[in-house]
């Protein structure tokens, strides 16, 4: 059975119990539901999540916000994530088809966020069980958004039935299913793909262009759809979770794109990688390089993602330099030209950079570039 239906299926009885029990038992219901789900789908993930969370909470409680403790905790959480991300270790220790522990990319980053905020002494008063409820929150466990602990705690303390929020949640789930199944899978991946095959023989560049559009929009609809489902499910439990996408295809420049695409991850990178690096090095280029590399490695540790990250670093730096030139300020005075041109360039850059991920190797990518720009082979 597909994971998404399993999650939706588990949530129906869970929601019913959640809203029937007293408010002191509500968190227990979600945590138990999540544990049962993980026992069924990924016991390894359950062990990793349980041990790492307990370790973080009690280490912080014992040593408080001592800088050495914070650094070693962050290194150990990042180390666990790296251990599972690097394919070689997976092949050595597990069978090669083994997936990552379910949702580890998301909960590791939530844990690092918690450690950082603890260090800054910005966390409201909370208990161990509040922390566990934050990490064992089924709706956002599997695909994010990487929500923040203080906001979670605020909703956690309220926990009152809200008609409007509940119906908003159901609406978001429906829209999410629509984005994934109808727009992403049926229209883009299936119909547009088979339509594009008409052009393979006569217009190979057009076929490749379609392939690029299909890959980008399919990725967007899949991811945005699953985020909608997660946000919708959270709303049915009375939690307002931050948005993950804000029409990224309308971004007018590459910096704007990163404020619209996977917002929770880019904000995380901004707060916990970019800002600290900038305050240490005082260098924009190094900070942006480091944060985009973390962002790329978060997706997958492979040279394809590193190159993809580097292309975005280059674009962000070019944009950073260009935005302070006279040419930019002159063009900016004409929004009729600037806006569509900005959108056109940004979306095409992003789509081409995504092809770095889609193609199997660099030769294939170069082939794609030659075909699409009509370069004579």
């Amino acid at each position, binding site marked *: 059975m597909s994971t998404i239906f399993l999650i939706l299926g588990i949530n129906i009885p869970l929601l019913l119990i959640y809203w029937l029990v007293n408010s002191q038992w509500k968190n227990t219901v979600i945590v138990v539901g999540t544990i049962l789900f993980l026992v069924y789908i990924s016991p390894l993930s359950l062990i990793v999540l349980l041990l790492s969370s307990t370790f973080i909470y009690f280490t912080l409680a014992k040593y408080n916000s001592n800088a050495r403790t914070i650094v070693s905790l962050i290194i150990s959480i990042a180390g666990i994530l790296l251990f599972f991300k690097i394919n070689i270790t997976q092949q050595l220790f597990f069978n090669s088809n083994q997936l990552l522990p379910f949702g580890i990319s998301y909960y590791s980053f939530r844990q690092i966020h918690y450690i950082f905020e603890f260090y800054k002494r910005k966390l409201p008063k909370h208990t161990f069980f509040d922390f566990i409820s934050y990490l064992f929150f089924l709706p956002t466990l599997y695909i994010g958004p990487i929500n923040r602990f203080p906001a979670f705690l605020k909703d956690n303390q309220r926990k009152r039935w809200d008609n409007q929020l509940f119906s908003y949640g159901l609406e978001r789930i429906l829209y999410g299913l629509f984005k994934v199944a109808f727009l992403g*899978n049926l229209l883009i991946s299936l119909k547009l793909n088979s339509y594009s095959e008409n052009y393979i023989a006569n217009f190979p560049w057009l076929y490749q262009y379609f392939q690029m559009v299909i890959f980008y929009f399919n990725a967007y609809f899949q991811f945005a759809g699953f985020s909608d489902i997660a946000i919708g499910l959270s709303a049915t439990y009375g939690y307002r979770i931050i948005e993950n996408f804000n029409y990224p295809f309308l971004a007018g420049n590459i910096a704007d794109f990163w404020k619209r695409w996977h917002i929770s991850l880019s904000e995380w990178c901004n707060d916990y990688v970019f800002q600290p690096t900038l305050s240490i090095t005082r260098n924009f280029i190094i900070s942006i390089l480091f944060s985009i590399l973390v962002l790329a490695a978060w997706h997958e540790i492979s040279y394809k993602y590193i190159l993809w990250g580097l292309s975005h670093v280059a674009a962000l730096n070019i944009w950073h330099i260009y935005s302070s030139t006279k040419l930019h300020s002159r063009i900016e005075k004409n929004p009729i030209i600037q806006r569509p041109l900005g959108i056109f360039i940004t979306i095409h850059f992003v789509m081409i950079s995504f092809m770095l991920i889609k193609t199997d190797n660099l030769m294939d990518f170069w082939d794609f570039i030659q075909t699409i720009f009509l370069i004579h082979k």
Partner: protein
Amino acid sequence: MYNWIYNKFGKNIANIFITIWYLAILFLVLISLDTYQARFKYGGW
């Protein structure tokens, strides 16, 4: 859209509209899922 219909035609018409809207979307989701390739494949990152 819903608010516009609500203000122009009243609560009942707006409710009928929104019900049809949701059913139409649900219908599209269901016919998509009927195609094997359109099913959910996400594994959990």
